[in-house]
């Protein structure tokens, strides 16, 4: 593995400006000289005692304990506002959202954790949100979706207790209702008509949307693969025709 016979030229001394001496904050670390027979042993033993002093110091001061006993401390446990644990929709006081289905977040998501479907039969406007599905199981909490959203619909919440027993329950539908955005809804005077335009959504119902999508994609993928294979065969054929001269005897070992 290591080959000392490899000739390596000596290193030039590094430029002056690089070299530092260090030790500006606290003094340099004591180097214990254990070369002396008796003195070395005593210095060594003293160094052991200084370590023991540190540990027993903590034993004697129970106030230094830093353990947080979760879940007993649920009441006092406060996570910072910016903590990214769960994606959430901003619904206003009436429970309306502002998502116009522009799909910018869906495109920006690095690993397809956001799946947006539109209503097949929009009630009021041209495009209406059906389900905004967010997959916790594949999300990397990179915050890109929140950053790119032009309407401030998305936010990250600090609710981190999201464990479930069924993986399918990790696909959340973030919107509380399928229907038009807040500005359109507010123009509708009649409360009953407003209600009719909105279709409530189950927060844990995202998996159905995903399963339908996967079915659709499977068929597409099979077709695509066949097309790719054909293209590859065509390329190889073209190349074989082009290569009149022998290509050389090197083999591809893979």
């Amino acid at each position, binding site marked *: *593995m*290591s080959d000392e016979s*490899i000739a*390596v*030229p*000596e*290193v030039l001394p*590094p*430029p002056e*400006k*690089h*070299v*530092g*001496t*260090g*030790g*500006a*904050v*606290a003094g340099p*670390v*004591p*180097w*214990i000289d*254990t070369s002396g027979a008796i003195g070395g042993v005593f*210095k*060594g*033993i003293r*160094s*052991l005692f*200084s*370590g023991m*002093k*540190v*540990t027993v110091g903590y034993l004697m001061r129970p106030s230094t304990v*830093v353990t947080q006993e979760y879940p007993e401390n649920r009441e006092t446990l406060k*996570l*910072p506002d*910016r*903590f*990214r644990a769960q994606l959430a929709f901003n619904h206003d006081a009436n429970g309306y959202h502002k998502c116009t289905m522009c799909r*910018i977040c869906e495109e*920006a998501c*690095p690993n397809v954790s956001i799946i947006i479907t539109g209503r097949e039969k929009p009630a009021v406007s041209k495009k209406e949100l059906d389900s905004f599905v967010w997959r916790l199981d594949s999300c*990397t*909490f*990179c*915050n*890109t979706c929140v*950053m*790119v959203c*032009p309407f401030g619909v998305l936010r*990250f919440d600090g609710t981190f207790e999201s464990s479930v027993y069924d993986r399918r329950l990790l696909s959340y539908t973030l919107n509380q209702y399928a229907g038009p955005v807040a500005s359109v809804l507010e123009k509708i005077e009649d409360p009953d008509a407003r209600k009719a335009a909105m279709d409530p959504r189950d927060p844990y119902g995202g998996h159905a949307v995903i399963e339908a999508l996967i079915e659709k994609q499977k068929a597409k993928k099979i077709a695509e693969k066949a097309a790719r294979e054909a293209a590859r065969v065509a390329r190889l054929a073209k190349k074989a025709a082009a290569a009149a001269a022998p290509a*050389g*005897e*090197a*083999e591809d*070992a893979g």
Partner: protein
Amino acid sequence: MSVTVSTLQARISGESTAGSPLSTEEYFVNMGPQHPSTHGVLRLVLRLDGETVREVVPVLGYIHRGIEKMGEHGNYRQFVHLVDRMDYLSALANNWAVTMVVEKAAKMETTERIQAIRTLVCELQRIQSHLLWWGVFGMDLGGFTPFFYGLRDREQICDIFEKTIGARLTMNYIQPGGVMFDIHPEFVKDVKAFLNYLKPKLVEYDALLTGNVIIQERLRGIGKLSAARAIALGATGPVLRASGVAHDLRKSEPYGLYSQVDFDVPVGTDGDCWDRYWVRMEEIRQSIRIIEQLIDNIPEGKTFMVKPAAKIKVPAGIHYSHLETARGILGVLLVSDGKEAPYRIHCRTPNFNNLWCIGEMATGGRIGDLVAMLSSIDIVVPDIDR
């Protein structure tokens, strides 16, 4: 011309090279992929003669995720969060490396404030990384308590990050065009409080581990790497500096606000485990110095210069830039064909190159030394495998 390709099986079934007059039998042992001191899923195949290590054959790839391939399938902003998962203890520096090359290539402007924040958080993360290393180093040498002290103090930095960034480990904070959030209103206060907290703790660390005679006896003269060999083996960061080469990109090619702050580059003399230990402990102190100079002088200005949803177009060609993470030089080589996604993106990760030194270091040492050496080059396995 034919090139033959070998296999692991062929590699580790070599002839015995024992030069001992006693008739001993060499044997192979798998250290890892599940082993307490390979820090994750590194596998080392050891050829041992009793306790003495004759040869180390690292076997990589147990956590290879193809980050470079994934990068070819998304746009530039989508690549940033992937590099968090390489060297997760230097996630911010990784973000910055990608951001740097993208900003340089796409000629994006930044403000002083953005650079100051980036420098500050990266230095905090350097301390954080070295604190975790210190704890793990103590544990690898058999002392359990340093692990808890190191992690306890590291948590405080994580708390500061949590407030400003919203994440503790994989931040995705430094973005092409700025930083994701402006700093939290309490950031300056928290950082100052933390530095005041950390300084007495460093003295305690020295009493507990640095000054301990057992530690010094175990590290002195172990895993020596001469300056010439360290460079030839591609080592960077504290491993290279411990060998006496003051190669620190923060000094030699200053990025961020490093040209405006005053700090020293600690270098070792012998390149043994003790020097690597000492260089890292000293780097914590230097990082404290850097933060103290910057924390009161964060300039005003914008923190995000472009629209986040705007597409980033990088002109065709090769772009490279690199920076100094807690472990060494992280370089990002970007080959663009002018499209929205990189044509090829390659990360030169410090751990990959540093681990290569273990073969030379460990040969002739003992198993206990091997653990100390492995820990002293401070490996993070996802960074090796990418």
